[in-house]
């Protein structure tokens, strides 16, 4: 492990780094508060603020490039945020290669998706716009303004997450993006399915957030500080068990946010949100926060090989189940969502490999950010053309109708399946090589699973391509779900522009990033990337193996899907594996049986106990006293003579008692 670089105060453009998140935050505030006055120019402000952040990020990045690598780690303390006894937290920013990389990804891809959204969320357009007109809100102008406000809020929160120099700020951003994600998944408020999906995402994230919070508590309890530099400098003082507990709790947080096993099932449901949201939040940026968390806390993970094995295993399991389920869905967005789950599994696997993989995970995160965002935007363009339909069985032959979408989507597809010399080829192969480079059983398990999943990825993506863009034009004889005929058409330039830019990124990002030395750039934050030795398989062999596996996947998909006409109705019944994959490998059923049902029973039992037990005791006491008093009140007749009788009776009784005691 190399010594951590010296932390310097931020200078120049970096000294106003707080503007990075302040600009979108202010813009979000304006859009939230201005009301319908901002309808006309809300989207311009929304796009402009993110673009401004992006430009500032580029300036800071160029400035950082100009100094020596060991001087690139800088901090900017804004003010003392929490000062309470021994707990002192500064509102401080850490501007180093890792956070700058994320800033550029978030604001860069974010800007493109904001621009795309101007067209996608436009009022009175076909597709979503018309949809929103029909039953969402009286004016879809205001719904677009609300959309941009929430999207800006997300960008601001995400930037706080990656720029904070302590765990509390990280947590602030972490919850901020969770809120934005919740709001945007449930953006179509009139759809019960969207509201349910939003709630599901929120609740499952909560499980992960509890893990993150507990990890932060543990760190503070043991070290008394939450600032990264201080924590990382002193983390070695702790016992192995404590470190392992911290890493596992951090991993739980990462699993929640990044849709990793066992908390993966919210992410596909999150596709209920508008497609730009799926592209930005649930593919390119927010869901990679878990990878960022583990990469950022790499000094902690360096100390615990056991913790890293758990991380890698979670990644392996997730990338496999994501790829398997992706093969069975007919919903274009859900296939892409499970593809995201699977690709983030690769990243988690990479960061679980330790010093041999942190930078590779970030590398794949960047290339994935490009091509997956591009794929989602392409899917949005297809949906736009197809009356918001997402069922690929109703598509077919769209390549001729929407050439730009077809080409950009196709390039993203090639990048994802790892076509040689496109983005995914560089980043994914590097991860698989590093996975095979592990010693003993780990190398075989990680490597073979990752290779297998690469083949599955090729299969489901090829299936998606064929069903959407090739073959018979099945939509000609069908009605759309809204009862109209399909009229597929190419989207407007404001939408295709970002798609073209992202497609270019999908093609060249991998080559450029590895050529300019992303690994050396990240070294001050993540440590030097260790070349993994030839473990299970020699490195020279791995790319050929992966390529063969992917080619096999493409071939099988062509034979199974491409050569035969696609039935418009989903075939039933199907073999058990397909059935299982269609049902998310029973993940939802499992959650329902093991957690939800007992939870409901427990709630009912508690409600019963509360109503009958606790309330019964309190109310019973009151009712008893009240009833007793009502009966006693009858004795107070107001008749003097009856009082006199009771007095006499009482006196006689007392005298009799006295005599009885006296003479007994």
């Amino acid at each position, binding site marked *: 492990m190399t010594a951590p670089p010296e932390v310097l105060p931020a200078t120049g453009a970096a000294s106003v780094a707080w503007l990075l998140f302040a600009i979108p935050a202010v813009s979000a505030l304006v859009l939230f508060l201005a009301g319908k006055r901002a309808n006309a120019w809300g989207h311009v402000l929304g796009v402009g603020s993110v673009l401004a952040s992006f430009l500032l990020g580029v300036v800071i990045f160029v400035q950082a490039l100009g100094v020596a690598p060991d001087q690139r780690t800088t901090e900017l303390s804004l003010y003392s945020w929490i000062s309470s006894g021994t707990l002192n937290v500064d509102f401080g920013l850490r501007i180093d290669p890792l956070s700058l990389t994320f800033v550029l990804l978030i604001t860069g891809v974010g800007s493109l998706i904001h621009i795309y959204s101007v067209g996608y969320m436009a009022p009175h357009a076909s597709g979503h716009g018309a949809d929103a007109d029909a039953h969402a809100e009286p004016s879809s102008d205001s719904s677009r303004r609300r959309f941009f406000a929430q999207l800006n809020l997300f960008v601001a929160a995400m930037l706080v997450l990656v720029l904070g120099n302590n765990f509390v700020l990280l947590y602030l951003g972490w919850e901020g993006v969770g809120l934005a994600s919740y709001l945007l998944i449930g953006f179509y408020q009139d759809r019960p399915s969207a509201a349910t999906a939003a709630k599901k995402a929120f609740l499952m994230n909560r499980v992960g957030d509890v893990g993150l919070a507990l990890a932060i508590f543990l760190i503070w309890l043991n070290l008394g500080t939450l600032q990264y530099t201080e924590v990382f400098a002193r983390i070695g003082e702790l016992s192995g068990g404590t470190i392992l507990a911290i890493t596992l709790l951090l991993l739980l947080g990462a699993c929640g946010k990044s849709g990793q096993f066992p908390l993966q099932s919210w992410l596909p449901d999150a596709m209920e949100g508008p497609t730009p949201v799926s592209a930005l939040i649930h593919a390119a940026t927010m869901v990679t926060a878990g990878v960022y968390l583990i990469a950022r806390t790499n000094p902690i993970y360096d100390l615990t090989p056991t913790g890293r094995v758990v991380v890698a295993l979670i990644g392996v399991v997730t990338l496999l189940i994501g790829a398997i389920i992706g093969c069975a869905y007919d919903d274009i967005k859900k296939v892409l969502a499970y593809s995201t789950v699977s690709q983030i599994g690769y990243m988690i696997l990479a960061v679980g490999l330790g010093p041999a993989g942190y930078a590779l995970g970030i590398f794949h995160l960047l290339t994935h950010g490009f091509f997956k965002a591009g794929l989602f935007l392409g899917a949005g363009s297809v949906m736009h053309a197809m009356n918001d339909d997402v069922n690929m069985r109703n598509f077919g032959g769209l390549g001729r109708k929407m050439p730009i979408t077809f080409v950009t989507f196709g390039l993203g597809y090639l990048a994802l399946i790892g076509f040689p010399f496109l983005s995914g080829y560089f980043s994914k192969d590097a991860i698989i090589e590093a996975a095979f480079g592990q010693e003993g059983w780990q190398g075989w398990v990680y490597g073979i699973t990752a290779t297998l999943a690469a083949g599955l990825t090729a299969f489901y993506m090829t299936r998606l391509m064929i069903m959407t863009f090739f073959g018979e034009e099945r939509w000609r004889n069908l009605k759309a779900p809204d009862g109209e005929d399909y009229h597929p058409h190419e989207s407007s330039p404001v939408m295709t522009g970002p798609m073209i830019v992202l497609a270019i990124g999908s093609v060249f990002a991998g080559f450029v990033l590895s050529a300019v030395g992303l690994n050396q750039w990240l070294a001050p934050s993540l440590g030097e990337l260790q070349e993994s030795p030839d473990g299970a398989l020699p490195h020279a062999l791995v790319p050929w193996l992966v390529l063969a596996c992917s080619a096999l996947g493409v071939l099988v998909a062509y034979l199974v899907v491409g050569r035969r006409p696609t039935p418009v109705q989903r075939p039933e019944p199907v073999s058990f594996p397909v059935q299982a994959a269609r049902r998310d490998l029973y993940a939802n059923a499992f959650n329902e049986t093991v957690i939800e049902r007992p939870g409901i029973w427990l709630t009912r039992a508690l409600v019963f106990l509360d109503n009958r037990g606790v309330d019964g005791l309190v109310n019973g006491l009151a009712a008893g006293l009240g009833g007793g008093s009502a009966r006693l009140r009858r004795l107070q*007749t*107001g*008749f*003097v*003579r009856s009082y*006199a*009788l009771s007095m*006499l009776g009482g006196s006689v009784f007392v005298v009799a008692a006295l005599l009885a005691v006296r003479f007994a």
Partner: protein
Amino acid sequence: MSPTNYLLLSALLFTVGAIGVLVRRNAIVVFMCIELMLNAVNLSLVTFARMNGQLDGQVMAFFVMVVAAAEVVVGLAIIMSIFRTRRSSSVDDANLLKY
């Protein structure tokens, strides 16, 4: 004459008074019955003083008379005011704290 006879008379008078208080409705009669009970007690006090050869009982009887005199003053005034407001001197009619 045996003192027992005086005590028996006292008991009889007290019983007559007590029953009168319980069964009669006219406030004046009830009032007089109370006086009867008080005087029955006076009689037994004096008898006991005689039997024990001490003056304590007789002193007590004087106290009772003083209290009874004061009680008559207040009691009659109350009965008067009840009669004025309700045109009735029945104790059963006066069964409300507020009228």
